[in-house]
């Protein structure tokens, strides 16, 4: 697990460093560099495990960013005190994978998890969450039923209403996820499950693929999730990351999600532009600059604190003056 990251001369970053927690939440205005942070982590992580990954043969040189035509791009990660995990360097053509191919940046849509899917060999969960049924099917009926059982066990732990997870044949060669819930006679197709439940199942499936990603990067995690689910999702994500020794990073614009990090303020990363370059800091660091202890957190929860602008990471001023 990466515990510290430094990015130099990559996309919108000139030189930024930040600590990572097992599950980190990334906030900031649109265009601040949140997605670039995820890309940097993806590159770093891919490079670190490059020899173990089947896509190695497709590695390509990273495109130089227009901002840095002459500078060396470096992305470094640390695992505790173990020192540098990886340095990627655009002087070394073979060591840098193209940033244009998203591998582990998931923008999971609940709808992508619930449809009918063709049964294929060598299934993987795709960036939008599609392929979940394919992976579950290949685990269940391949020789990795142990992994399917682990997914089902974890799914039942996280969603206590679930009694059994299975797949139904909807037509020849096509299957759909279904669930038996406690107290219900009929099996529920995935389309009947809540969006949060589908996303949890997708995440568990991503983790329990035969070749699970070493990092899970989630764009706009709150998209499609009811805010009431956040309090429920955050501990699950944290638990998953800690159990598996991986990083999960999720971007959001939702203050309700930030509210859920009252006990782990180090885990909220604020991305913002200063003089055109993206910077990284944690909410915990920003709180050192203000007297947050002087207010009751119930009057001013962390999400409101961020939204109001006390800790940065908010959009630039919109000028409404006529003629402006």
């Amino acid at each position, binding site marked *: 697990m990466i515990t510290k990251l430094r990015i130099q001369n990559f996309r919108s970053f000139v030189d930024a460093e930040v600590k990572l927690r097992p599950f980190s939440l990334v906030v900031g205005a649109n265009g601040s560099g949140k997605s670039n942070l995820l890309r940097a982590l993806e590159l770093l992580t891919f490079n670190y495990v490059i020899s173990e990954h089947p896509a190695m043969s497709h590695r390509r040189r990273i495109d130089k960013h227009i901002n840095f035509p002459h500078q060396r791009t470096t992305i470094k990660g640390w695992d505790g005190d173990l020192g540098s995990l990886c340095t990627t360097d655009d002087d070394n053509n073979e060591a840098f994978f193209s940033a244009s191919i998203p591998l582990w940046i998931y923008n999971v849509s609940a709808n992508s998890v619930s449809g009918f899917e063709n049964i294929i060999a060598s299934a993987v969960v795709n960036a939008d969450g599609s392929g979940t049924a394919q992976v579950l099917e290949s685990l269940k009926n391949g020789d990795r039923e142990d992994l399917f059982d682990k997914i089902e066990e974890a799914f039942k732990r996280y969603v206590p209403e679930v009694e059994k997870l299975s797949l139904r044949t909807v037509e020849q060669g096509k299957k759909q996820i279904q669930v038996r819930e406690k107290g219900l006679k009929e099996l529920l197709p995935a389309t009947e499950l809540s969006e949060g439940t589908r996303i949890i199942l997708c995440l568990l499936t991503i983790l329990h693929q035969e070749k699970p990603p070493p990092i899970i990067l989630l764009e706009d995690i709150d998209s499609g999730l009811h805010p009431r689910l956040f309090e429920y999702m955050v501990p699950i994500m944290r638990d998953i990351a800690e159990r598996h020794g991986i990083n999960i990073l999720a971007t959001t614009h939702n203050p309700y999600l930030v509210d859920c990090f009252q006990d782990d303020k180090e885990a909220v990363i604020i991305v913002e532009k200063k003089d055109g370059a993206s910077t990284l800091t944690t909410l915990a660091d920003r709180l050192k600059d203000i*007297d947050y202890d002087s207010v009751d957190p119930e009057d001013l929860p962390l999400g409101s604190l961020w939204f*109001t*602008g*006390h800790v940065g990471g*908010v959009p630039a*001023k919109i*000028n409404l003056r006529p003629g402006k």
Partner: protein
Amino acid sequence: MAKHLYILSEGELDEMFYERLAERVTGQVFQSDQEFRLRLGSNWKSAMANARLLISRFKHWTAKQDIAVIIAVDNDRAPGHPGGRVYQPPLFKADQRKEPRYTKLAEMLKTSLGEDRAAWPVDVSLAVPVEIIESWVLTLLDPNRDELPAFSEAESHSARNYHEGKPPPQLKDICKQEAKAGNQSMDELFWKAAESDLAPAVEAAPSLKLFVDELKAWT
């Protein structure tokens, strides 16, 4: 170098309005590159906590800074405003129980920055319109109009209850009507109000006078 202006308010429209009034009263031009925005639906406790947190940035400073602060919170019929109104028949219990907002904010400033306003490291003004910002907008547009309504919208439960089910148009409703009649956007209406003659409006609205007097004290 222009002075920095921090405004704690509910939105860009309010911010534009208060900033323009500050420019006109003080004759200064400000850099307003950092803004503080109350979350929609924030209650008074949240607004007070935000105000306290914003002011706490300056409480340990001793030298005068090139910073000015406007804290804008609607009075929302809270009793005890020195420029406020008394309503008959009695308002909701919820309104009667509200803390005096202007007074509480002024107390907080003194506790944080000291009793002597002249020694404060930053200039501060409290914008606490009686009853909401639209009250000041309407007064500026026409200081001679009849007494303004007390509520935000006629559709609100409190307005319907107060007026026994048949409330006349309330403050936001009137602003919308005037904007529509003048073929203006709300931005344009607020801007026009902020550009209006201040003197008669200040005479007509004691809460606006308090704000303007505090702006006049800025150095």
